[in-house]
């Protein structure tokens, strides 16, 4: 496992600095450990996803009406 620095500075952000040489399998360990995976360049990574799944939204509305 490469050296990992985990600190909790201001704003309560857990920062993980992972060396760029980290392998895919090692990154997977971070992921399953609940950490997001960061490379050496970044201090924080936030992800986002949108889907145009209208049926999912409609279902929610229908459930709401019931």
């Amino acid at each position, binding site marked *: 496992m490469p050296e990992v620095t985990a600190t909790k500075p201001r704003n309560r952000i857990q920062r993980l600095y992972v060396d760029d040489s980290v392998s895919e399998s090692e990154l997977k360990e971070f992921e399953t450990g*609940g950490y*997001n*995976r960061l490379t050496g*360049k970044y201090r924080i990574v936030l*992800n*986002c*996803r*949108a*889907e145009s799944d209208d049926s999912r*939204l409609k279902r929610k509305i229908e459930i709401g009406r019931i």
Partner: protein
Amino acid sequence: MNVLTILYGQFPEVLKLYSRFQPGIAQVKMVIDIEPSGGFERAKFLKVFGELSKFFPTIAHHSCCEEWQSLPLYIEEESGVSLKRVGECADVAHLIEHVIIDMQVRIAGMTKCSGLTCGWKEPENRFDIFFECTNARVGHFAAQYAVYLVKKILRKKGISKRHRYVIEMAEYLMTDPGTDINPDELAGRLGWRKGNTMMALSMLDRFGFFFSGDKSQENQEENRA
């Protein structure tokens, strides 16, 4: 808030940062500096989010910070707010990313679109925003227009209701890319006033919607705003 670079192409190095990125789909990388003070305090952030939700109602249905459930890095979840707040200027960059993603789905007709906001170690207020993109000019426009809207709200100027015409015009033009850009004709077809039509076209032009670089230029496109 200052956009340093907008690039369109393949960025394989970020695929490993988020498993939802779809292999083979191009991305846009925008590098942006966020003012380190202001915009991410809870009350102000919620106000900005609420304002944007009027224009982008589906933003509330986005998935955010997936794979963080077992050790959340964010401060808290807010009711009705899809975006997870961490309490620093990363929140503003992340909000811009959500707006871009929403526009990608709506204007480019993507069935799904993923994005990533990556905060630099140094300087701490610099961010790389990556998002999937199937149409370079839509991505180019969405990035710049999202920055414009968020900046406007943060400066307490609010967004005019007329801005909805900008998004609707972009959607309309994407459904028929061969449409002649004639304000009179478009106003007639859409049933809009000519002033609103002109405003929408002008904003689209200002924020790069009519950008037309060839493939080699797209991969190296660099815009400084």
